């Protein structure tokens, strides 16, 4: 039986955790794709045409279907290419994965990035608040190799792209030790496990470049 011609394109950005997590999923499932790097902030006309509402990366194009928003794309990839599933099969586990993914992209991102940089109540308070949120995740991964269990899943990709390979670079640039080993042994162990996975390793933005990028963004926010 002849295989249908699949055409998969991804518009992304090297430093974006939202973009990188989609690449992790495509690589894990062995889906061949064409990668188109956006030279942000100079958005291409293609990006504006494909995602007119939000004008953001990542955008996945699968044959004639266009999809924005990383969570939506990850779920779509999981439903379309069924090997190496990334979402749990059990409805409750699935609901929990989706809940924590939202928590990471909303609460943790907001506290661990903007609130920290703006530090309206002072840097110490911002760090404390971020660590309080991170503690929820610490508890979720106790006794497991990954949030997904024995293998990486949806939540590992969301958390991995956002925390160690994006936010942690900002924290490094600001000289903050946000997730010390003695307070967060489970998260530290999880990060070590993540780096062993090929699909993840290939999607880690170059460290120095990311530290520089995140620090620049922080400086811009602080100066306004």
């Amino acid at each position, binding site marked *: 039986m002849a295989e249908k011609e699949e055409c998969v394109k991804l518009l992304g950005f090297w430093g974006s955790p939202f973009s990188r997590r989609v690449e992790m999923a495509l690589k894990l499932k062995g889906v061949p794709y064409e990668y188109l790097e956006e030279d942000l902030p100079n958005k291409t006309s293609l990006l504006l045409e494909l995602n007119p509402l939000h004008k953001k990366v990542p955008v996945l194009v699968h044959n004639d279907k266009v999809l924005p928003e990383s969570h*939506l794309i990850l779920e779509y990839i999981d439903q379309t290419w069924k090997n190496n599933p990334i979402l749990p099969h059990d409805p*409750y586990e*699935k*609901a929990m994965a989706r*809940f924590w993914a939202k*928590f990471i992209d909303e609460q943790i991102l907001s506290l661990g990035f903007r609130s920290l940089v703006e530090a309206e109540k002072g840097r110490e308070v911002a760090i404390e608040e971020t660590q309080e949120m991170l503690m929820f995740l610490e508890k979720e991964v106790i006794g497991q190799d990954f949030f997904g269990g024995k293998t990486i899943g949806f939540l590992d990709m969301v958390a991995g792209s956002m925390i160690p390979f994006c936010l942690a670079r900002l924290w490094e640039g600001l000289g903050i030790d946000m997730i010390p080993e003695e307070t967060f042994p489970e998260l530290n162990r999880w990060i070590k496990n993540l780096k062993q996975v090929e699909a993840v390793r290939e999607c880690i933005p170059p460290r120095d470049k990311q530290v520089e990028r995140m620090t620049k963004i922080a400086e811009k926010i602080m100066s306004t």
Partner: protein
Amino acid sequence: MEEREEVKLLGVWYSPYAIRPKIALHLKSVEYDYVEEDLFGSKSELLLKSNPVHKKVPVLIHNSKPVCESLNIVEYIDETWNSSGQSILPSHPHDRALARFWSAFVDNKWFPALKLATITKSEDAKAKSMEEVEEGLLQLEDAFVSISKGKSFFGGEAIGFMDICLGSFLVLLKAMEELKGEKLLDESKTPSLCQWGGEFLSDETVKNVVPEIKKVAEFLRELEVRAQSAASRS
């Protein structure tokens, strides 16, 4: 003999977010216990225990396991009771993604703009937010026309995920219209959405679940009075 499943829903009566899981449970004919949280009092022990991260309603507790966040709960209900009633989410992965996309738009962009427009004291901010609200409605109108393909609902012949998401705001919208004497859903600008709104609120399942517009309007009036008296005291 089948063991009775324990299904509890924690909510507040007028909240659009709490209405969503109610509609889903009714569509699937699932029996459940409803627990009303005290709006102006302190949060119940059960709520704090079930949703320690956000401490918000709605929360669905199924056999002692809590599920939080309204759209998450609706998906959970659809997947758990998948053999009963109609499917709430579309079956094709791309259609599912579209339904989730527009729901995220409603929750993350459209409704926050409406909320801001209602509570802000700045005339400028209010005008800007209302512009966003109106533009959003036009975008939703286009989305509806394209997704429904001539049928009554976003979900087609029957109510689906996106209908529940946007529809849950309809009573609040109509109550606000009554309170302010201004139209938010305008037939001349968004005719298809207006028709959809009418169909949604007259649906057999929805009718028995949503609160009365009058009651919500009264409640909004009470909230305003409370806010004003609090402001004058400070």
